[in-house]
């Protein structure tokens, strides 16, 4: 249906981003675009929708065909009836303010008759299961709801191809499953084709028909997921497990892997007992109320020195509110936080920084200068401590580079260095893994381990169960501002299947990580 022929794209000052790309997406097919960060996945999607090079600059050669007709010179708005696009942050693309109007917006542009619009809005509300949200203000929706409304708002135009850029990266595991189930339903029942880019392969691989792998040299390899994943540089844990165990063909779903795993005879990993730790921070009866909603209710929490604690829970369960309240500058209705004998809320910003460090969800909010070196010098007053810290976290980031040109992982490391330079005893991170590929997440997990070895206590809010399995010692699960379960990772994960990583799903508790299995093989 849609065909990319001999696509070549690049910016004038740097080399080609994509070269010799050929890709065909057929009717009713779900195609995944995969590869490490910064290889041009979003660029490839943009070429299909027409946003590249119109919104990005750069030079595009080659041809894009829709049903055999070249559309490479057609602007995105003239492709809207056939190609629907949902960007990385769906909330940024909303034009109207209620769900119903948003669903109708695209159809109004196409000039469809009112009866058709009405019918399609009702159908789409039901199809996506958002009928009860129809009058809601778009800004009050949760992340998963916003994502489904964004998908719905392009579906009403009855596009034949749906292009999605990281549709589940901001969502909690359950909401991600809902969105993916919706997509599968569209592909199976309505014959819509889907082209999507996603970092969290463990979530999407079971649903994918074909994969398009960008290796980093600008070329793509297209094929069945089972074949491509044998050599792919980015693979989900389940494939890593399959590779380690020497299974062929590779299992792609937990069900396949579980069947194969029966033949494995493994000695369970030695679960080391709880090390006795002193509490670096103690939270007592903390309440945070925003308007009429209680974000955090009567919460008690102890964070051990030298431990990484993961904070999990669905979107809007109070994770960010808790982090900001512990840091001391966020709203706090009642309760106390005790870090080293003092409450950060009572201190001036500079003293607070020496006690508690926080890397916010949008790490770019911290940056304001033109080069990495200037940022470092501003943070440490020219002593060079920040740069030394950055080199320890992620070596060899050029000092004259603009912070906005860094990769997601490098930018996060820079933000981390800026916060850590005042040597806080407690470090808080809000959703640090968004936009990171497996390699970058691995590096981040190593960084957090290194910090705990230095005696820092770390609390990291995240949706990423695989990252939790890799990096965390303890897990705290929040729901409606209250702790619903907490304890060592192995125990919590065994109790709540929704938060279990793939290895646990396949081999059962107490298995957690691929490297444990590799060691036991």
């Amino acid at each position: 249906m849609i065909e990319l022929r001999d696509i070549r794209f690049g910016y004038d000052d740097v080399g080609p981003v994509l070269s010799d790309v050929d890709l065909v997406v057929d009717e009713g097919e779900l195609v995944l675009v995969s590869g490490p960060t910064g290889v041009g996945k979003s660029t490839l999607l943009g070429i299909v929708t027409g946003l590249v090079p119109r919104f990005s600059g750069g030079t595009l050669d080659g041809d894009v065909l829709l049903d055999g007709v070249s559309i490479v010179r057609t602007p995105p708005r003239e492709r809207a009836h056939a190609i629907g696009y949902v960007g990385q942050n769906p909330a940024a693309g909303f034009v109207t303010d209620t769900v119903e109007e948003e669903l109708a917006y695209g159809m109004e542009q196409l000039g469809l008759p009112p009866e058709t619009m009405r019918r399609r809005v009702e159908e789409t509300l039901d199809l996506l299961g958002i009928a009860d949200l129809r009058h809601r203000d778009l800004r009050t929706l949760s992340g998963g709801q916003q994502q489904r409304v964004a998908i719905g708002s392009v579906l009403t135009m009855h596009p034949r191809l749906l292009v999605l850029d990281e549709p589940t990266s901001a969502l909690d595991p359950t909401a991600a499953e809902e969105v993916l189930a919706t997509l599968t339903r569209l592909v199976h029942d309505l014959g819509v084709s889907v082209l999507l880019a996603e970092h969290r392969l463990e979530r999407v691989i079971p649903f994918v028909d074909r994969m398009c792998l960008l290796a980093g040299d600008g070329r793509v390899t297209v094929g069945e997921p089972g074949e491509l994943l044998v050599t792919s540089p980015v693979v989900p844990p389940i494939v890593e497990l399959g590779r380690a165990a020497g299974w062929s063909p590779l299992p792609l779903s937990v069900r396949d892997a579980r069947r194969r795993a029966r033949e494995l005879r493994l000695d369970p990993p030695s679960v080391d007992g709880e090390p006795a730790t002193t509490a670096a921070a103690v939270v007592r009866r903390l309440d945070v109320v925003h308007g009429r909603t209680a974000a955090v209710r009567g919460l008690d929490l102890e964070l051990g020195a030298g431990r990484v604690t993961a904070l999990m829970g669905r979107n809007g369960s109070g994770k960010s509110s808790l982090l900001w309240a512990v840091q001391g500058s966020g709203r706090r209705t009642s309760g106390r936080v005790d870090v080293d004998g003092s409450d950060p809320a009572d201190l001036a910003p500079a003293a607070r920084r020496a006690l508690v460090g926080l890397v916010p969800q949008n790490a770019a909010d911290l940056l304001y200068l033109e080069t990495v070196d200037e940022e470092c010098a501003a943070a440490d007053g020219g002593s060079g401590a920040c740069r030394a810290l950055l080199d320890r976290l992620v070596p060899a980031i050029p000092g004259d580079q603009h912070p906005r040109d860094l990769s997601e992982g490098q930018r996060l490391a820079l933000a981390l260095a800026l916060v850590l330079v005042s040597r806080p005893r407690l470090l808080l991170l809000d959703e640090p893994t968004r936009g990171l590929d497996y390699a970058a997440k691995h590096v981040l997990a190593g960084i957090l381990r290194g910090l705990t070895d230095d005696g820092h206590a770390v609390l990291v809010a995240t949706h990423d169960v695989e990252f939790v399995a890799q990096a965390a010692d303890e897990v705290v699960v929040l729901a409606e501002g209250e702790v619903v379960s907490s304890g060592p990772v192995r125990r919590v994960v065994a109790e709540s299947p929704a938060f279990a990583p793939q290895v646990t799903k396949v081999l059962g508790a107490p298995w957690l990580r691929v490297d444990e299995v590799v060691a036991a093989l």
Partner: protein
Amino acid sequence: MPRDLHPVAWWLWAVGLAMAASFTTNPLILLMLVGVASLVVSLRRRSDQSWGRSFRLYVWLGVAIIVVRVAFRVVFGGWFGGRVLLDLPEIPLPDWVAGITLLGPLYVQGLLFALYDGLRLATIVICVGAANSLANPKRLLRSVPPALYEIGTALVVAVTVLPQFADSVRRVRAAQALRAGETGRVGRLRRLLVPVLEDAFERSLALAAGMDTRGYGRAGGATRAQRRVTGALMLAGLVGICVGTYAVLDRTAPRLLALPMLGLGVVAAVAGLLSAGRRVERTRYRPDPWRWPETAVVASGVVVGALGLWISRNQLAVAYPPLDAFPTLSAVALAVGAVALLGPLCSPPQSRPAVVVPTREEVAA
């Protein structure tokens, strides 16, 4: 049946009330209008939407206007004659500010005049506020004629961006407190501005991309010739209106260029708009219907405005009451309040959003 009234109806009604207020300084009439506006807002607004809650802000603005107006009169004086309420000492000023006095004797009439005048402006502001909280301003912008659709959308987006901008400022300010950095005045400003502006640019690009991929600004099926005709009509209309307006204002210009030219310009412009609107291939999803309650609300606004005008021409003592006696009302003045309330009482109650959790009765049914 509960539904949202057409936003244009609410605005016309409020403009009628504001017009009546502008024709009088009678505090009784003005307070009556404020009362009617507040009553209608409390009966018919949508309290669940952010714009629905803005009425209180307008009321406070009105109070502030009155306070400032009266305070100015106390401080700068500028009224002589009548009974002295309080004999404040006058502060002598140098000669080059002749005509301005500070403090000095405070006359009752002077204060009353300032109070009435402030109340008049406050009433107008409160009427506008009532319209704003009764009708979603975005839906009003959506009701523009199809040819102006693009401008309407741009305005809607601009309205949306403001709260986002405030949100972004708050976020960046909190984030910058998490790191060490420049603390000078310029440095602090830079620390706030750079991330906020970058955020704003990124948001705008994302929004533009989102709108473009959803078909905003599609060319539609107009032929080249049609587009030229539309362009020519619009241009001719613009030139006609400009020349005509100039000639009307400039008495020495030939009379042929005045009203006839203005009329021709308006006709050409309207034809251009119609032709542009016809070629726009765009439809409206569930447009607000215009039924008899809309007409009733608009009619009540128009009648209130007309009554206000009539009073100011024919019942001077009621419209501009003397400052040395208690203001009086006439039957017509009372009718102003009654009519202002009558129209909105015909309007249907505003629809509520669907209840997410059904009540016990609904479950039983």
